[in-house]
């Protein structure tokens, strides 16, 4: 392997370890200040929480919302692309925790009528998706 490539590979691995420590709560890489990394970890979660709250205000209505979001971050680890999707996955987490109100469930249902989570992305439903969704609803009613 050429020298530059091998040096770049080392940088890549070091950055990967750091990002996993910040997003997935893996061990702080050797030599870093643990307290500073922990502060950065919390700062990243707060920033992510604020972004999700802007796109999903209905999910952040009480004082425990941001706390719950941080718990979701710790459990979920890596954020996927975009606050809109992050908020939808947070909603899924809240559904499992059985803490959603009827209004929140309605908001999620309205959102799901237009969007669907596909792999690591969010996409707009097309006509066929909507037809399929309404058939499923009729069958499960």
């Amino acid at each position, binding site marked *: 392997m050429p020298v530059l490539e091998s040096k770049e590979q080392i940088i*890549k691995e070091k950055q990967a370890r750091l990002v996993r420590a910040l997003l997935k709560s893996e061990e702080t890489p050797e030599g*870093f*200040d643990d307290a500073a*990394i922990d502060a950065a970890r919390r700062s990243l979660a707060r920033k992510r929480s604020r972004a999700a709250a802007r796109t999903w205000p209905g999910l952040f209505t009480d004082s425990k919302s941001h706390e719950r979001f941080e718990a979701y971050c710790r459990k979920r680890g890596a*954020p*996927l692309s975009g606050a809109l999707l992050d908020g939808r996955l947070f909603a899924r987490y809240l559904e499992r925790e059985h803490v959603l109100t009827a209004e929140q469930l309605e908001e999620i249902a309205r959102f799901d009528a237009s969007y669907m989570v596909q792999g690591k992305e969010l996409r707009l439903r097309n006509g066929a998706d909507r037809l399929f969704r309404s058939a499923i609803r009729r069958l499960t009613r």
Partner: protein
Amino acid sequence: MHLERRDDLGFIELLAENHRLDEKPREEIAALKLKGVDIAIHGVSLSLGSAGLPDQSRLASLDRLAEVYDAVLVSEHIAFVRAAGLETHHLLPVERTEDMLALLVRNINYAASRLSRPLVLENIASLFEWPDNTMDEPEFLTRLTRETDAMLLLDVSNLYANALNHGFDPIEYVERLPSSKIAYMHVAGGTMRKGLYHDTHAHPLPGAVLQLVSDIALRLPGVPAMLERDDCFPIQKELFAELDSIEDALSRDYACA
């Protein structure tokens, strides 16, 4: 926010990630351009400090946006935002070593070669430092400007945050930068949390940051500055008062010269 009501705006920044190329150019921005306000395109997701060359499609989008709004420059950060297949949505510091410098120089030259506007690079705020840094930031930035054609965007609030959190003299930092390479400055609000200063772009401008702007303006006469506010927008009166306070801080330069 009715920015067109101000007659003293020299330039504004458009956050690239907030604009879609398949949408019509925004009329309020066209109105500002007609008044002679310059446009800068500001990106946050290019990740120049990541291993591998910068993403071609992101570069193409930045350049297309610069074309659409006839921008005078494109600015990005000396940082990385993704690794291990994970998006952090946050600007993370690069290790300041010879190897990292070589990688950044290559990536900056590559990015600049695919942009039709000058590339300007910004210093970031970070709550932590890499343990094996072999250079401090002024040396690292100076080397970058020597080894590429990039100019610098000095973020005064990021500098303030780092100086406070990591304990160094921000004025000495500025005095060691190549002043002719500094294109413009960012100024933003922040807040103290558990003994650390956080640059949030969501809080009012602290007096200490404005004082630092004044002190820097004395050393960098004529370098323009802009307010960065992208969250928790205040009412227009307060926002305009913040713009005035930056103008005042910059003009102390002329009073003392």
